[in-house]
């Protein structure tokens, strides 16, 4: 049978354990709104019984430590979805920026100027000798060339914005991987203790989360902490060491991403702001630019050859109406109207000033199929469809992943988030336990005093 001292010892252990639990509760409440914080639960275990002969006495309680409640699998899923979401987001926002150049509301877009150009030619055909109708054709041609220039520069500026994102994302990635490596070192030292990485691990999870928004990563747990690589296996963090990415200007003037050994890994980066920016910069926009350039160059060539079929006011064979740069990659950005004099429009089919015969050829350049197989309007309309469709897909994808991510975050919250109501309940529970333990100690103390006084006071 244990003595009073045993009970006192058990009481003190209870007081200490409850004190620890109250600490955990108070820390949970304090961090209820801290991003990345994982609630901690006090882990108690009962101590071994003391058996002495037929006497058995309880050994009390020990506070093993505070356990962070987290689900690593959920964390992984959230990281993956975060990568996909920020990739879709950057594509969606870039395309939103681009598609404003393709709406008819401004009146400066290619649809509006192409139709104005077509109208001006039809008008000229009805009134071939009118200077104002001729001037109308030249200004409508200039507007059309300008709208090609504006659209092309809209696309290239969105492309260089995306390029800026690449540089920015790489420097953020480097800063995050350095911090993660440092935390890895700290965690591998502290995991030996019972607190399960605790707050340091929360910090690391939060950083990995931020990292996954920048690029798709793959995370594996090793003895040294977490090993983080990009989707294609380029190491970013191994244990306490981080590997910085670099950027360098490529042959096309765009930033290329190099790994720590200098290999170009630009094309293999997927997901995250970095992956999304690279995709929109190297695939989506160039594809649209190519279509726009092909249209500008083929249309200008077709119109110029229609000019050459007729005669201008001086009876000479029509000269080029549009000038296009020799490099077809600059066609849309560089197209301009070559002629300034209304007399240079090849209106006549027979060299006489009043003839409108060649206007039909000029108009036909707008309605006949280009070498691409489509009429200018149809080719442009395909481009509008592509821009709209890509933008709507990117934003639909972002919404869908967003919902999925919200679901996962809810699940993570149901595991790891601090519930103030739960903590309030715990507070009451541990308060009662603390009071009870304190009462045990004071009771034992009283009993001890009574016991000590047994021989001296001579009884009651």
């Amino acid at each position, binding site marked *: 049978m244990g003595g009073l001292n045993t009970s006192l010892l058990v009481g003190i252990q209870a007081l200490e354990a409850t004190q620890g639990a109250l600490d955990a509760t108070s820390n949970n409440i304090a961090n209820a709104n801290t991003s990345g914080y994982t609630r901690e639960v006090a882990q108690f275990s009962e101590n071994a019984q003391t058996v002495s002969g037929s006497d058995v006495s309880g050994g009390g309680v020990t506070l093993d430590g505070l356990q962070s409640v987290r689900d690593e699998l959920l964390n992984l899923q959230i990281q993956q979805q975060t990568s996909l979401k920020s990739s879709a987001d950057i594509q969606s926002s870039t395309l939103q920026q681009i598609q404003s150049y393709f709406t008819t509301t401004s009146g400066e877009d290619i649809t509006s100027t192409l139709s104005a150009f077509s109208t001006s030619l039809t008008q000229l055909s*009805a009134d071939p000798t009118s200077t104002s109708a001729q001037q109308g054709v030249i200004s409508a041609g200039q507007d059309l060339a300008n709208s090609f220039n504006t659209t092309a520069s809209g696309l290239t500026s969105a492309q260089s914005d995306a390029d800026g994102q690449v540089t920015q994302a790489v420097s953020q990635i480097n800063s995050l991987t350095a911090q993660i490596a440092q935390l890895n070192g700290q965690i591998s030292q502290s995991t030996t203790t019972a607190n399960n990485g605790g707050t340091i691990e929360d910090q690391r999870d939060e950083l990995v989360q931020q990292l996954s928004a920048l690029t798709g990563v793959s995370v594996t747990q090793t003895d040294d902490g977490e090993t983080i690589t990009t989707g294609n296996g380029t190491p970013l963090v191994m244990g306490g060491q981080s590997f910085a990415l670099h950027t360098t200007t490529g042959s096309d003037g765009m930033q290329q991403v190099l790994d720590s050994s200098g290999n170009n890994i630009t094309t293999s980066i997927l997901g995250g702001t970095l992956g999304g920016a690279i995709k929109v910069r190297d695939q989506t926009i160039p594809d649209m630019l190519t279509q726009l350039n092909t249209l500008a160059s083929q249309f200008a060539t077709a119109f110029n050859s229609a000019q050459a079929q007729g005669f201008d006011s001086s009876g000479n064979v029509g000269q080029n109406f549009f000038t296009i740069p020799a490099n077809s990659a600059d066609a849309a950005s560089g197209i301009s109207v070559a002629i300034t004099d209304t007399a240079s429009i090849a209106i006549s089919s027979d060299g006489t000033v*009043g003839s409108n015969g060649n206007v039909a050829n000029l108009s036909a350049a707008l309605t006949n199929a280009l070498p691409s197989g489509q009429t200018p309007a149809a080719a442009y309309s395909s481009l509008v469809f592509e821009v709209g469709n890509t933008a709507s897909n990117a934003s639909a994808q972002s919404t869908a992943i967003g919902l999925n991510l919200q679901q996962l975050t809810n699940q993570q919250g149901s595991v790891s988030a601090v519930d103030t109501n739960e903590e309030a309940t715990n507070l009451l529970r541990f308060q009662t336990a603390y009071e009870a333990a304190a009462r045990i100690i004071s009771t034992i103390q009283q009993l001890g005093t009574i016991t000590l006084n047994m021989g001296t006071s001579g009884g009651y």
Partner: protein
Amino acid sequence: MRVDPNMVPDMLAAIQQSEQSLQTALQQVSTGKSVTLPSDNPAAEANMVQNTIETANVDQYTQNASSALSMVQTADSALSSVVTSLTSAISLGTEGANGTSSSVNQQAIATQVQGILSSVVSQANLSYQGVYVFGGTASTTVPYSVDSTSPSGYTYNGNTGVNSVPVGDQMSVQVNIPGSQIFSNTSTNVIGSLSSLVTALQSGDTSAISTATAAVSSAMAYVSQQRVVYGNAESQLNSQETYLQQETVSLSSQATSLVGVDMATAATTLSQAETDNNAALAAAAKVVPNSLLNYLSTPS
């Protein structure tokens, strides 16, 4: 099962979503358009490219048709007055060929026919809005000028070119007949025959007067025939104008169905979105302040 204690993100998401729908609905009602960006409906916006271009073209075709119509009508009425002039020239010629007609009388008739010739030439030199109607494509030069070396006394300065005005994607209407075809072709020469009639009347040669009168009358028949070209053009232009009006209506209804909104639906959607938004806000206001701590008495 433990549930996610943090309701704020869900609630914020719901509020944002309902605000987004509200904004979209409001925008649709206020602009009357369901598609403002290509991403709203890529296929519709792509079709709008064609629609916009065609609408603009149809507008211009309508203007072309109406200006071509006035030009054709002007030319036709000129030819009609030429026919009238020729009719009186024929009766004058017949009168001059009559053996009882005195030489003085014939001279008087010759002067009258000379007047008719001038009026026919002035009709042939008709200009409409600065464009010579019967000069072929050389519409900036006077078609007939006085030329004493020419047998008829006039030279044709125009050419044989023809202008057609586009009034539809696949349709253009011929709006002029060159003067060389109507007034001075080799077989039925209006100006030449009138001029020979004047000469014959002046010389008093009755058989020459008869021959010249017969030539004028076959020239008149030919001019009447040529009026059919203008008559056809007029009726083509009239029916094309009607077609273009229908086309305008159908293009605009296509545009409405592509990017427009049905106001009744849009208004319903708007009020629905308003209700949703109110509900989301009300729910947030009810749930957020709830806490167990409100019900626990302060420990004494």
